[in-house]
């Protein structure tokens, strides 16, 4: 199986991120003003498509990694998931107790926060192993 290089990953990620930004700027603003409900749903969910593709790309990168890289991906993802779980738990309990008022659109931030936490954890782990990239 040919290795999925860091360059391939970055190039495809850049394309998907550009599509996502374009959809957010050009398509998504029309969702609030759409006349029919089906069309509103289509426009509202349009940004999800490039993000799903991005998640698939991240999974592909992990699958094509060697054993040390996979270990780093797994530990970093576990750390990030744990962090998100604690954050959601704290927010949920504070909301339930009436201390905090948060709208449903805060859920949009779950994936970006997961990505940032994953990146930070991965950077820390890569340092432990003497610098690590998926090349």
């Amino acid at each position, binding site marked *: 199986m040919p*290795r999925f290089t860091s360059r391939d990953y970055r190039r495809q990620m850049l394309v998907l991120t550009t599509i996502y930004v374009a959809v957010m700027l050009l398509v998504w603003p029309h969702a609030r003003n759409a006349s029919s409900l089906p069309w509103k749903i289509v426009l509202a969910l349009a940004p999800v498509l490039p993000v799903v593709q991005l998640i698939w790309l991240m999974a592909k990168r992990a699958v094509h*990694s*060697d*054993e*040390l*890289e996979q270990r780093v991906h797994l530990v970093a993802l576990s750390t990030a998931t744990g962090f998100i779980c604690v954050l959601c738990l704290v927010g949920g309990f504070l909301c339930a107790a009436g201390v905090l008022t948060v709208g449903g659109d805060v859920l949009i931030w779950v994936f970006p926060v997961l990505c940032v936490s994953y990146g930070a954890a991965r950077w820390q782990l890569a340092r*432990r*192993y*003497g*610098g*690590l*990239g*998926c*090349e």
Partner: protein
Amino acid sequence: MNNHVRELRETKGWSQGQLAEQLDVSRQTVNAIETGKYDPSLPLAFRIARLFHKSIEAIFDPDA
């Protein structure tokens, strides 16, 4: 775990990248193994041993 991967690689005159290519891993993984920061799995240890025509025990020393 101590190992002799670096000495064996240098004896063959290979770079870390060349060894990584033959083992189908990244250069960083070879570096982490050589510096003792990462202990390879059994299948990878066997691949390394086969490549250098040695036994696993001759390359990896768990007591060190």
